[in-house]
């Protein structure tokens, strides 16, 4: 069957001169049909229950369809078949009400048991707070002083078809969540703006991230590896570009990693203080600002600063970007409540913020000549 399909397909591929076909043949399982068994005890049980349900449905369906096709074949007028006259039978009708009911109970019991296991997130070894926002994830280790954002790393050029797409197209991030194997990890899941859903198929974990509320889920991963998922709840424009990547490491390696991260984040904080005293040149600020802008702002305000009319405002030629510098910094630092504009003070360093304000005030012909420094941002945040 698979063979016939791919044969017919190669003909089509030639006809349509579709480049995707040739490319994707390399390493990707193109005809993956079924749910993953995953890498946790729970995900394996979910898979088993899924297969049980599947086969029960196949049997019921086959029974119905066979009966139907028998009568379509034998009981047809063209064969001279004369219609019977029966049109009810209490016995049969009771039977096909009661038997399905019993089958349902047989399904409900294992399902309920598994559900209790899945929902029992008590006594974790480790807790991570997962916060969704348009369109990235934030991970905060509750037992260590480590937190970071995780954004899709696929380049825009791959999406636009200018570059070839690589193996993990759309499923790769700049910084993955790292967890230890063999430990019960609890995920506390919430959101800063709209509803998202954090989904890792290999863990059979999918939980909505609701703004203002916290959900929990858990996983105990046995094998080290890289596990990929996506946001599963429509969350606006870039919903399709919000992958989840989790790396599971042996506990010893994990401990090393987390200690490293803690040190790095500590140092970054000290560095920040030092940078406050330093001034960037216009060129430095513009270069850094462009990088920060494309990574954080361009999704809504667009790379050309023109925004999406009626949805996201333009920065090019906007009154705030041209004139009102304090307001510009305020919007960036504190966000605008009741809109998609987030508060970036907790997402970016002060020098990044300074650079991006500078960039926005000088790019796309905004040409104000304003150069903003980290200390200006610090003044806005801390009132100094």
């Amino acid at each position, binding site marked *: 069957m698979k063979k016939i399909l791919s044969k017919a397909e190669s003909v*089509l591929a030639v006809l349509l001169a579709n480049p995707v076909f040739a490319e994707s043949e390399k390493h990707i399982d193109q005809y993956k049909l079924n749910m*993953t068994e995953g890498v946790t005890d729970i995900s394996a049980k979910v898979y088993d229950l899924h297969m049980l349900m599947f086969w029960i449905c196949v049997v019921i369906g086959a029974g119905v369809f066979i009966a139907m096709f028998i*009568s379509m074949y034998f009981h047809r007028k063209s064969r001279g078949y004369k*219609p019977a006259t029966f049109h009810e039978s209490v016995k049969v009708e009771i039977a096909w009400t009661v038997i399905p009911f019993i089958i349902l109970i047989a399904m409900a019991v294992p399902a309920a048991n598994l559900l209790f296991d899945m929902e029992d997130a008590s006594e974790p070894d480790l807790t991570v707070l997962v916060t969704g926002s348009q369109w990235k994830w934030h991970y905060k280790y509750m037992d260590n002083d480590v937190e970071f954002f995780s954004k899709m790393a696929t380049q825009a050029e791959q999406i636009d078809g200018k570059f070839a797409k690589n193996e993990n197209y759309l499923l790769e991030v700049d910084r993955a969540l790292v967890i230890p194997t063999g430990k019960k990890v609890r995920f506390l899941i919430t959101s800063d703006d709209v509803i998202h859903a954090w989904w890792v198929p290999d863990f059979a974990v999918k939980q909505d991230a609701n703004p203002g509320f916290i959900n929990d889920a858990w996983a105990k991963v046995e094998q080290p590896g890289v596990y990929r998922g996506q946001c599963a709840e429509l969350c606006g424009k870039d919903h399709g570009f919000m992958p989840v990547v989790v790396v599971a490491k042996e506990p010893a390696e994990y401990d090393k990693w987390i200690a490293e991260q803690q040190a790095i984040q500590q140092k970054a904080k000290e560095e920040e203080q030092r940078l406050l005293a330093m001034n960037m040149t216009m060129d430095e600020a513009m270069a850094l600002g462009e990088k920060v802008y494309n990574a954080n702002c361009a999704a809504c305000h667009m790379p050309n600063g023109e925004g999406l009319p009626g949805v996201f405002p333009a920065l090019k030629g906007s009154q705030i970007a041209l004139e009102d510098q304090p307001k510009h910094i305020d919007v960036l630092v504190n966000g605008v409540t009741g809109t998609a504009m987030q508060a970036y003070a907790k997402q970016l360093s002060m020098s990044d913020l300074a650079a991006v304000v500078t960039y926005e005030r000088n790019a796309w012909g905004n040409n104000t000549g304003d150069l903003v420094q980290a200390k200006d941002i610090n003044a806005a945040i801390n009132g100094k």
Partner: protein
Amino acid sequence: MTTVTDDSHHDDHHEHHIPTGIKRWLYTTNHKDIGTLYLWFAFIMFLTGGAMAMVIRAELFQPGLQIVDPNFFNQMTTVHGLVMVFGAVMPAFTGLANWLVPMMIGAPDMALPRMNNWSFWILPFAFLILLSSLFMEGGGPAFGWTFYAPLSTTYSNDGTALFVFAVHIMGASSIMGAINVIVTIVNMRAPGMTYMKMPLFVWTWLITAFLLIAVMPVLAGAVTMVLTDKFFGTSFFDAAGGGDPVMFQHIFWFFGHPEVYIMILPAFGIISAIVPTFARKRLFGYASMVYATASIALLSFIVWAHHMFTTGMPVGAELFFMFATMLISVPTGVKVFNWVATMWRGSMTFEVPMLFALAFIVLFTIGGLSGLMLAITPVDFQYHDTYFVVAHFHYVLVTGAIFSIMAAVYYWLPKWTGKMFHIGLAKWHFWCSLVSVNVLFFPMHFVGLAGMPRRIPDYALQFADFNKWISIGGFAFGLSQLIFLALLIKACKKQGEPVSGQVWEGAEGLEWEIPSPAPYHSFETPPEVK
């Protein structure tokens, strides 16, 4: 079974007063005219929503963004869903009810003919408003047909006001249509037409109408709360003001789940009319069909949160909604078993309406079975918001509701026009649709299980090959509907062989006892049903 008084004399008399041209259609209070209006409107909406689906499938033909930007893609999925649900399926069923309910119960018209006119004529405006929002600054609604808050409130564009207004009008139209159906059925049955003698199409529509009256106001409430949250500073769905975004989903699905049965119960009625005709055998288990319909309708009020298993409900609630949802498959099963038992030892022929009805039974059953899988909460965590769900609801809605509507049109069209439709075209339409619809929707099960989320404009490479097939199936299904369009135009030009009053050899019921085409005024003197 019945005696019909000859009323052709009256018809001649009335025929003189029918205004012509646009006025006839604007002012009409005739149930047949209004039925025709509803059906054409639904078909135009079906093609409009279909065109949007073509945009979606063209974008998803291969990985990467080629044709539309993600924001417009979201508008397409949203408006496609709204147009198909509220513009195609529901008006088509209302159109069928208008044509058929009076003829099936021996009534001269609907009980409230002026309201009937009104409930139709506000609909085009609702959709004009909705569709025109696509061309305004910021574009149309982009938050999915389920318009979850706060994506539809704080994070939507100002066009949301138009969406809300449009939904209000659609709701008002549906409620008026439902009142009309109920009043007609309760008061205007011919003497001797007791409830348990009514054709199942009448029964299922009666129950559907009660569902509509129960839940359309809930939808109206939901959109109104979205409106005030967005524009007037309330916080129904905003935690910062003491509200709860998940409450939105409870309210929406309290409407939404009965809504999906609103879109399938009349289909059950249609199939229950067609199968006995072409099996030449009475419907098996008439009474149990009625009870099954009623129990489905009642159960449909207590299963809504099966759409919300991942929102973080307490385990007790998850269990309740899982069990209740599983329960609903029992009466649904009874229906399918009854149809098969009706065919069993019948004397079957396979005219076009029967072909659609048989396809319905098989493909709807597939959709029902995937529904049963979705009901199992622990596994639904994996299925939810993937293409597996998309496959499920397209099997029940396209090969379910839409196929039943097509079956109904083929079955009753000769009665309406007095001419047999072009059978060759109809068979082409059927076979092209049947093959393409499965190429379109069946592989969605696979990509869904393999992990492809729904409502995304671009996808990872492992989904590429199935998506290409799905798109090809989609284009083929879209094109197949043009055959239907050609056939309908021919039928409206009254081309084809004249047919008898009974049309189909095995057809039974009052509508087959009047001449074909059905006179403009039928049953002015009620027939007597024995």
